[in-house]
């Protein structure tokens, strides 16, 4: 019996010690020293292979990358890139934990820039950019720097960008006697009501605009940019309880939902949620006169409804902030370099090519219907003067456009905000100011835990 007890204790002890030993960390942060010079990229550079992971899976996107990397290899034969598509943030974090991360990782969204930067998972590229003589503010628009910098560190670089706006059906606007897209929340409510067509049985044939937060890309309406609200104040405290503007967009949503009837909205969301990007999209079928979406939707509409006559405008702002009209939520794909890469300089060289090469950015932008992410590529892009694309470029360049602040909690704060909105829309929140205040406390709590590491 004693031997058995001893065996069990020894097993537990060994497993625990092994677990303690197998956790990464110890020393923490980024082990790579800042650089002061760039590598020589001439033919004398020893052959180097780096691994690049990306989230992309669609053939046209993957091919655009492969073509560009092949061009890069032709120009710099010493550099070989092993390109691996179909990897998400979770796969990347697991690879880091296992001690075998790729040299470069391309993520679909900037949700984890703050977390990876805080945890030392990725390189701070500031010194690399300086050594390569890249003037960051003059290369990348401010809206894309907001979601690639964390506490003064440039922990990622933008690779194309997304902006969000209001798509509207011109024929339906004309039929309803509306001459221009709405600029304020009041105008939006009035127009949405005018555009709504109800059936005799109370059901709705055409919705003006469905703003329910879980539908399509609508969660970005509530990111705070429309009301000039920031998730956090200067002290890093959540502002949901202190900034009354947070309630304005929620109230706009409630006004419209009450007008349509929550049952009708539920049917709309249930029916069209799986079809937001295909030919059954409600904006295409005529079930919605307006919709909120990202710029990539232009590409979808081009193939699904080439004859649809539609316009694009910035999403409205509260009535008392009309001077800010033109702003919008922005975010995009980001490039990271793993902090423990054996080839930091070579990886940066590849990242530099991918994030600043105008020809590549414009080719990729055409392939995936995104906005090029440097000033040069924006100027050179053949779509820049297209009436649809120009609206999104304006939103992207607007100094009032931004993405929510990045923190060490990664995407958890935004997901919790989504849950709060859904509870509010479901009628589970009776006292909105009090609930927002309580919610702010919860967000502060998860940030405290993350920062306390």
């Amino acid at each position, binding site marked *: 019996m004693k031997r058995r007890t001893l065996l069990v204790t020894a*097993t*537990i002890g060994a*497993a*625990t010690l*092994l*677990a*303690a030993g*197998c*956790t*990464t*960390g*110890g*020393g*923490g*942060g980024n*082990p790579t020293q800042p650089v002061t010079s760039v590598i020589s990229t001439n033919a004398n550079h020893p052959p180097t292979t780096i691994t690049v992971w990306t989230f992309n899976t669609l053939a046209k996107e993957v091919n655009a990358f492969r073509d560009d990397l092949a061009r890069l290899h032709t120009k710099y034969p010493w550099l070989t890139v092993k390109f691996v598509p179909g990897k998400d943030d*979770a796969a*990347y*974090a*697991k690879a*880091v*934990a296992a001690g075998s991360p790729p040299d470069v990782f391309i993520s679909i969204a900037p949700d984890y820039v703050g*977390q990876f930067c*805080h*945890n*030392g*998972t990725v390189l701070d590229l500031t010194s690399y950019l300086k050594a390569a003589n890249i003037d960051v503010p003059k290369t990348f628009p401010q809206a894309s720097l907001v979601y690639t910098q964390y506490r003064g560190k440039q922990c990622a670089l933008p690779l194309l960008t997304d902006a969000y706006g209001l798509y509207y059906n011109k024929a339906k606007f004309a039929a309803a006697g509306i001459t221009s897209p709405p600029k304020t929340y009041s105008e939006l409510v009035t127009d949405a009501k005018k555009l709504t067509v109800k059936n005799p049985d109370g059901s709705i044939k055409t919705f003006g605009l469905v703003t329910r937060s*879980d539908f*399509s*890309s609508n*969660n970005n309406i509530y990111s705070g940019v429309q009301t000039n609200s920031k998730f956090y104040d200067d002290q890093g405290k959540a502002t949901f309880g202190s900034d009354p503007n947070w309630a304005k967009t929620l109230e706009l949503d409630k006004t419209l939902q009450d007008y349509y009837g929550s049952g009708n909205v*539920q*049917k709309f*969301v*249930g*029916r069209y*949620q*799986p079809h*937001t*990007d295909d030919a059954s999209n409600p904006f295409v079928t005529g079930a919605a006169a307006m919709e909120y979406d990202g710029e990539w939707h232009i590409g979808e509409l081009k193939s699904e409804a080439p004859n649809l006559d539609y316009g694009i405008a910035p999403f409205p702002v509260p009535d008392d902030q009309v001077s800010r009209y033109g702003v919008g939520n922005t975010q995009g794909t980001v490039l990271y370099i793993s*902090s*423990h890469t054996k080839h930091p300089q070579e990886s940066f060289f590849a990242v530099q090519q991918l994030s600043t090469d105008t020809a590549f950015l414009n080719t990729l932008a055409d392939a995936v219907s995104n906005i090029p992410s440097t000033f040069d590529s924006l100027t050179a892009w053949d779509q820049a003067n297209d009436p649809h694309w120009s609206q999104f470029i304006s939103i992207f360049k607007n100094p009032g456009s931004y993405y929510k602040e990045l923190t060490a*909690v*990664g*995407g*958890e704060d935004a*997901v*919790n905000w*989504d*849950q709060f909105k*859904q*509870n509010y*829309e*479901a009628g589970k929140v009776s006292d909105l100011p009090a609930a927002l205040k309580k*919610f702010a406390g*919860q967000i502060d*709590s*998860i940030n405290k*835990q993350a920062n306390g*590491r």
Partner: protein
Amino acid sequence: MTSVATRPAIPVRGPAPAARRRRSASKARWWVVVGFLSPFLIGLALFVVYPVFATLYYSFTNYQAGSYLATRWVGFENYRNLFTQSTVFWEAVRNTLWMVAIMVPLQTLWAIFTAWILTRIKRGAVIYRTIFFLPAMVPIVATALAFIVMLNPVGPLNSILGHAGISGPGWFSDAAWAKPSLVLMALWTVGNTMILFLAAMLDVPTALYEAADIDGANAWQKFRHITLPGISPVIFFSLLTGMIYTFQYFTEAFVASGSANPILSSNQSIGYPQDSLLFYTTEIYRQGFQYFKTGYASAMAWLLFVVIFLCTVVFIRGSRRWVYYAGAVR
């Protein structure tokens, strides 16, 4: 006669040679057994024992997958935060308990009912048994996807309901109907349990029913006093395994949420709609693999283990009052 000289007795020092041979042979056999078992033992140690105790250690740390910050021992902080600071923990607990309380008994009742129906069928019993059992052979993900198609708000079922003048609900896309939709799916796949009940029912001695007939018992009385006690061990098994499975309910909910809201990222779609499909294990997944809070997720996992263990002990102890074992020595 030849006299046999008696030799002086050899003093005994240790086991006799035969016993020693037996012991060394037994030792050799032991090593052979261990040798043959070693692939399994190594696998068990690497993939079960180590991860289990590693998560126990992690649950007391702030370990985050993918982080290069030093891991810190935080004691019971992760466990404390679960109860005091998590915004969704209790929602996940409520949803999981709802499924345990509603889905598990309904599955058992439905399995008993279908098994009972099958005992009544005289012609083509094998065909009907096969038909009823077939859904249990379909992989869970395929079943979930099939139900997502069938229960689409504009899908086949609502179309049929529409012809009957009934406006069908949003099923998986409607928070009020999402869990009942999963229950419906669970009832469809009840074949495994049904087969056990069918075997148990057919095993109840017919003499008992004949005696009840002579006593004038009606159908309900026969079911209540003969069939139910006869199949009570299977009811116990069904409820116990169903409870354990449902506490760890994951795949169906994960697929249903993701399919109802394909445009959201996976961490946003977990629990969709409105957290109605947020279960304990899906929340563990999100904390561990979406937020990379490995220590916190490990604490959640260990808490679940303790709860399941306690519920199992209580259930087994309580079963002595109502489970009847015909061959048991009392």
